[in-house]
């Protein structure tokens, strides 16, 4: 029970120092495990070595980051757009909701490694399309689920109000239903953003043009360049974080005025 009481006495700088402290401790343990004890397998290099590679090879890592990030972004945008459309249809026509339910549930559990080759065959192995499609597909799920929920969140009093002032269906959607669903959309986007990056990256690993973070990670991990491979992993994390932070900011902006 003392938790909230303690929280109040914590200085505000602890907010920033705590995660940094955790990071420093984590890095120290890592260095201890790899460099001092030398107990780690070769595949797990020291963070120092990773940092060196990151600096040394930043230009090629950056190039691949751009490719993976753009694939993830295109997938995220397209997947979200389609998800919003489907959610709007499902919210309007109940049966469609029921019809989509099993398909969405199944999509949510399809392994990326399984569908990427199929998408590559369907859409061409030499285009980035397969990756974008995979990113889109993974982004679709959380956006669809959240927007659909959001579209059902209008309160009876608001619905009554719009009816009482004789608003048309289109006006009700634009001025009530959509703004109500907006915070849900941004929550969905936030969840989808990290997933899109991860899945674009994993898709690269399953074929397609020989570029992007995922391809590089696998290539270098398999040729003994563990530190370089992990430098690429850091690149992937940076993309994921960038996506997360942008969408989290968006979510914060949208939920600011949301009803409690």
């Amino acid at each position, binding site marked *: 029970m003392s938790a909230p009481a303690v929280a109040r006495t914590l200085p505000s700088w602890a907010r920033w120092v705590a995660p940094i402290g955790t990071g420093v401790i984590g890095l120290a343990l890592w260095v201890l495990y790899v460099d001092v004890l030398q107990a780690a397998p070769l595949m797990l290099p020291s963070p120092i070595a990773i940092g060196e590679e990151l600096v040394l090879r930043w230009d090629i890592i950056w190039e691949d980051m751009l490719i993976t990030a753009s694939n993830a972004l295109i997938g995220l945008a397209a997947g979200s757009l389609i998800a919003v459309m489907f959610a709007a249809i499902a919210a309007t026509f109940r049966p469609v909701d029921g019809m989509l339910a099993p398909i969405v549930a199944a999509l949510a559990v399809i392994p990326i490694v399984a569908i990427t080759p199929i998408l590559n065959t369907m859409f061409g192995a030499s285009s980035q399309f397969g990756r974008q499609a995979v990113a889109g597909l993974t982004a679709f799920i959380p956006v669809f689920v959240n927007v659909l929920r959001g579209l059902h969140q209008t*309160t009876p*009093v*608001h619905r*009554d*109000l*719009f*009816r*009482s*002032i*004789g*608003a048309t269906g289109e*006006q009700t959607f634009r*001025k*009530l239903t959509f*703004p109500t669903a*907006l915070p849900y959309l941004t929550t969905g986007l936030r969840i989808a953003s990290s997933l899109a990056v991860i899945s674009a990256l994993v898709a690269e690993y399953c074929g397609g043009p020989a570029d992007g973070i995922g391809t590089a990670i696998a290539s270098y991990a398999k040729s003994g360049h563990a530190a370089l491979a992990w430098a690429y992993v850091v690149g992937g994390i940076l993309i994921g974080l960038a996506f997360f932070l942008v969408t989290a900011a968006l979510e914060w902006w949208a939920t600011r*005025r*949301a*009803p*409690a």
Partner: protein
Amino acid sequence: MTVTTPAVRADAVGKVFPTKTGEVTALTDVQLDVAPGEFVSLIGPSGCGKSTLLRLIADLDAPTSGTLEIFGKPAAKARHDQDYGIAFQQAGLLPWRTVGENIGLPLEIHGKDKRQRADRVAELAELVGLTDFVDSHPDQLSGGMQQRVAIARSLAEQPRLLLMDEPFGALDEMTREYLQSELTRIAAETHAAVVFVTHSIPEAVFLSDRVVVMSPRPGRITEIVDVGLPDERDEQLREAPEYYDGVTAVREALHGTTTARPNER
């Protein structure tokens, strides 16, 4: 319009809700006329159909029997013509809109141009005493202020009929008394007829020309109390004997008809 056309005329109105466990008769045989400019309160225990009746008048639901006329027209037409304004227990403001934008919502929906809208919003904000807050968001307002925004919104189209479903139910007593005075002032200024749902006997008496007392199972009107207080309603009145008489009259009408067993309260 002739003076004799009532603002609301309910003739043998009934409402039955089909539910999973059978039919619920929410209202039977409701007979009620509200004159233009008249202030009528609906009072009665929970579930007696007050809200249902109000929603029928507002054409938010359709009656299953009987007829309803608003200024001589069918309820649906009255709704489309914006003959009434409505306010609910929850203020029901859109949180992403400012106070001004909330007040102006009906005008916006009906395509009033920006200039006209701004003028009217300023006027309404003034009326409810929120001029300084037009650019605030609802979450920055107290409950009483939010409810005043909702009332301003319901007045936006200058309706001749105001429908209010426990608009002060969620407020504390002191704010409530204050808003009651405001409402009588506004109703007088706008010459609108008001149908006002409440749980509070003092509130009903303080505000109304007539108090409609209802009883549940099935919901029906059991008595209509003519309050007979002067048109001017001020704070003095709350301590006046006529007022206490009105309260006693409504209490008795109500208790005579209250059949709810304690366990179901």
